[in-house]
């Protein structure tokens, strides 16, 4: 019995140490961002070397997002739980280490200044949804999972503040259509499908206007 426990402990220790080793190296990730997976466009082509993305084109900001969250999204494109004709062919040849590296690289980029301004009434409606929700339609506040000021919580609940509005809108529609279904326990699907078109506009505009703060590991 003792021997068995000892072996279990040893196995546990090995697991822990390999988990520690499986860390992204931001410097190596820079290479990946520039070169891509060797069979498609490099990350920088759309997300920029600074990870700022592009609102007009709906390319998300990656700078300052949680590294583990970014890595999971890349894996999910390859697994088909997040469908994008643009992303999937560009990441399907990345190794696990490259995924970790490029995620670490973008997580470490300084977050850009938010684009403020917009329709005051729309922003006010968005703020209400983000901070208070719309409980009569069973929509909890975004903050109740994405954290204070929607700056994100860990690897499962990404920062939304300062994410591009067009991207947020596009993703909410992807949850609704089922093109994106990589949410743990379908926690996002129900919320997305209960939002009205106007609420989607409003919450995307509001969140896009907030200044992001980098997740842990970022700047």
């Amino acid at each position: 019995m003792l021997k068995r426990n000892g072996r279990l402990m040893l196995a546990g220790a090995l697991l822990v140490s390999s988990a520690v080793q499986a860390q992204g190296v931001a410097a190596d990730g820079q290479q990946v961002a520039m070169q891509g997976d060797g069979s498609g466009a490099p990350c920088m082509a759309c997300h920029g070397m600074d990870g700022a993305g592009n609102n007009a084109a709906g390319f998300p900001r990656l700078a300052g997002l949680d590294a583990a969250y970014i890595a999971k999204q890349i894996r999910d494109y390859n697994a088909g739980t997040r469908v994008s004709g643009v992303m999937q062919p560009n990441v399907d040849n990345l190794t696990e280490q490259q995924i970790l590296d490029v995620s670490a690289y973008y997580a470490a980029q300084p977050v850009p200044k938010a684009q403020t301004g917009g329709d005051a009434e729309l922003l006010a409606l968005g703020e209400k949804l983000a901070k208070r929700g719309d409980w009569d339609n069973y929509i909890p506040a975004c903050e109740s999972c994405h954290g204070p000021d929607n700056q994100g919580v860990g690897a499962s609940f990404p920062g939304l503040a300062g994410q591009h509005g067009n991207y947020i809108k596009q993703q909410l529609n992807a949850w609704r259509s089922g093109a994106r279904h990589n949410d743990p326990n379908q926690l996002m699907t129900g919320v997305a499908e209960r939002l009205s078109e106007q609420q989607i506009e409003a919450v995307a505009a509001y969140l896009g206007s907030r200044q992001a703060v980098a997740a842990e590991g970022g700047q």
Partner: protein
Amino acid sequence: MTRNLMILMAAATLSAPVMASEPKVPINLPAPKEGQYVHQAPTIDDLMADESIKPQLREVILKGYDMFMNTQQYRGKYVFNDMSCKTCHMGEGRMNGSGPVWPAVTTLPDFRGKNKHVNSVEERIAGCFAYSMNGTPPAYGSDDMLAMVAYHQWLAKGAEVYETNIAGRGFRHLGNKIPDDVSYDKGQAVYEANCAICHGDDGAGQKKDGQVVFPPLWGDGAYNWGAGMTRIFTAASFIKNNMPLSKPGSLTDNEAWNVAWYINSQERPQDPRYTGDARDTREQFIGFHKHTRYGTEVNGKVLGQHNNTGEKPFLKPANLKPRTFE
């Protein structure tokens, strides 16, 4: 025959878009039972638009709302764990099925079995602070207590006074009979599959920048052993109707019972009514504790047999006392 087939095909074509718009995450909440009283509590927006409310009163109601939503601002004063009013009374305390708080002002003063005397609204609110928030309530008659009561009363606007057959009141729609086949292991499996992503494997919840995002379910940051939520049936109904957040009604009744059993088989701060012995305290308050696992042996240990009051530097708030009217 051909005609029938065509009708069938037409029906199939018609029903296709309907099928497509079926929600992927439907909300399966119980409808009010026949004869139950349904009240739709007003919102803060309604308050702002209601010109019959004097501005001074509106200000006090808004203070109560702020206390309700962000009770953690009183950490170390009234609250000594990670809970806020809104943690259990979801949807700003308005939602039927989520422990709506307005019935407190339409049904109290009334006799409550929990403390065996006629309780005021203030005393009811005090109970939440003493047990669920492991703290000490704002003083009766204080500005803070008045603000809390004012917010409760706002939510009750237009509701029937003395009506007790209220739809969506409290957390008990699954009844209070624990199914015979509940088990710790089954509950743990439900927990790990559905709850741990937010509340953590250790039940400690998650914070961001020191602010509570996902509340702890056990341990020092959670409700204490005197909280209504320690009753298996209360937790089961709460979970069934409200969890996982955004997916109310998605767990089966059986899953809700098992996970409530599992969560309430974990240690938490001491019941403020503790006599020094958990088995004895259980017997003294058996009307309450017959629904909890407090003072019983779980995994080789008697739950609640300890002097841990969490962050709170005392056991019992001074204003939790019996009332006799003699």
